[in-house]
């Protein structure tokens, strides 16, 4: 199988940053906060670049939906080895309400437009933890999906995917074109080397609007309120096992 791979890369608040809820409880503070590429998206980019290095695919296209700053995330993907980028411009209120349903509609439209044979995404984003975009994209395209991939191998016109599931590892074989979502152990993303950073300067990032793709960004969801998790309270010490069981029954835990 040779051809084009679309890789979705999301700009999220950096994993090391301490998240703060906005005083009006409508969301988290993002202004002036360090952002970087979602770690699972980095793994997705790495997998795509590795497939290209093995000459199993021809072109890696990095896609990001968001405001101007999303271009930085695409540039990082280019510096890791992606060939070109597509920035789908979404800003303001549209960006605030952008979720997996809208993104998967955008990716599906792009996949058709670019005649992609494979879409690789991170399994979830570390800001919303939705774990939905990959699955929705596959459904919209009526493509098979290999989610939580910890190992991917291309065999003729099929893809063998080892998936990390609760019970252990599940191996499936799916047809192409397909959607894959990357799990933690799929690979270790490379550092953007200096020569690749220099090469990335010459690579193109195309600008596209969701309307051009015929995508309606209206959200069906409304965020009512965002709160910090409850403060962890001190525990209670008990003398015997019987006391423990009694306490658990009292508080309705068992």
């Amino acid at each position, binding site marked *: 199988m040779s051809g084009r791979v679309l890789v979705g890369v999301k700009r999220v608040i950096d994993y090391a940053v301490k998240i703060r809820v906005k005083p009006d409880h409508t969301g988290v503070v993002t202004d002036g906060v360090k952002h970087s590429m979602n770690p699972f998206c980095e793994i997705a980019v790495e997998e795509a670049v590795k497939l290209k290095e093995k000459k199993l695919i021809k072109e890696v296209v990095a896609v990001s939906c968001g405001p101007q700053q999303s271009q930085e995330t695409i540039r990082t993907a280019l*510096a890791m080895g992606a060939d070109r980028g597509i920035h789908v411009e979404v800003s303001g209120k549209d960006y605030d309400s952008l979720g997996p349903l809208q993104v998967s509609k955008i990716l599906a439209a792009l996949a058709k437009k670019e005649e992609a044979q494979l879409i690789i995404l991170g399994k979830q984003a570390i800001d919303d933890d939705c774990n939905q975009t990959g699955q929705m994209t596959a459904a919209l395209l009526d493509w098979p999906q290999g989610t939580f991939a910890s190992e991917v191998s291309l065999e003729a016109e099929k893809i063998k995917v080892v998936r990390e599931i609760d019970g252990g590892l599940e191996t499936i074989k799916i047809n192409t074109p397909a959607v894959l979502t990357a799990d933690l152990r799929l690979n270790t993303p490379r550092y953007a080397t200096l020569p690749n950073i220099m090469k990335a300067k010459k690579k193109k990032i195309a600008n596209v609007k969701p309307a051009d793709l015929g995508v309606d960004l209206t959200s069906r969801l409304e965020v009512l309120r965002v709160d910090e998790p409850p403060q962890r309270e001190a525990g209670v010490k008990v003398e015997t096992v019987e006391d423990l069981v009694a306490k658990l029954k009292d508080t309705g835990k068992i």
Partner: protein
Amino acid sequence: MTVLLSALGGCRILRSGCRGLSQLAELPETHQLLRQTCRDYADKELIPVAAKLDKEHAYPAKQIKELGSIGVMAIEVPEDLGGAGMDYLAYCLALEEISRGCASTGVIVSVNNSLYVGPVLKFGTEEQKKRWISPFTTGEKVGCFALSEPGNGSDAGAASTMAHQDGDHWVLNGTKAWITNSWDASAVIVFATTDKKLKHKGISAFLVPMPHSGLSLGKKEDKLGIRASSTANIILEDCRIPLDNMLGSRGAGFKIAMQTLDSGRLGIASQALGIAQASLDCAADYALKRTAFGAPIGKLQAIQFKLADMAVALESARLLTWKAALLRDSKKPFTKEAAMAKLSASEAATFCSHQAIQILGGMGYVTDMPAERHYRDARITEIYEGTSEIQRLVIAGQILKEYQL
């Protein structure tokens, strides 16, 4: 900006100066990406092992190779020779982040880039560049720079290492001291006197492979800091090298050394900035967590004033370093600015690491926290590649020249 200046008569010097100034305020995207890559690498691969490398005086061979594949072992070298083909500002940014992770690793990278590859790139023949640069871009091999001797450091013009011609060989005799990377290097640039009567104009530079017969290493110095990098004497006893191994022309050695050190100064300035930043990070983090008198000590003015002073010293040194790098990249004179950068950065490093220990109190004095290592690593930055005293002489010399017109 550019439009306004064109209206003023298109003064080219002003325009490129403005582009340089805007780079001080916001770095170009490639530089931001490189800085981020080096920062990530330092966080993941250097900070976790720095204490161990220091304790064991262990050369970070694995890390140097990885840094080689990232492309930072020969940043300025053009791509056709195996380098990254980037500018000196990029080099300074990379070196600061690496040194923030591990100062020893920083000096190894700095010496290879500025003191070894740098002069060969500037003064070498095409043949010499291929032979002596390309294998040293990947981190597999590193080079070193032998100017100082037991009898002269600051007094570089008094080189007592001698070189005389014997047939189709140069024969070198003498001892070089304090050579960084010596125990791990595969090549060295040696400065030796070829014509004693010409004094400092009679010094020439030579490329010597390592190991090589006639070249031996003294014992590894047991240093206060930057312990993962090796420092030792290089002893030359009838060390024979082909005539082709002379770098630059006969008698140009002193000039080569001085120009090389101008650039090397920016490398050490960047290393010092990294140490200062690491100290500030450590101190600020501690100030937010440690409570005394019922609140984090970061709420106390005494601590706040220290943090402010540290940040100002660091940021001003950083801007001086970037300005010197930008001048060098624009091929403008940068000797004064480089000396100012090295002087302020090294003094900022010793100041910041000193204050960091103070803020950490007893915890700053033990090896559980990195503050003590930063303090030990910082100290050398005021000494090597031109002592703070020499920097002051260089700066004063430049200033007086400017006023003499």
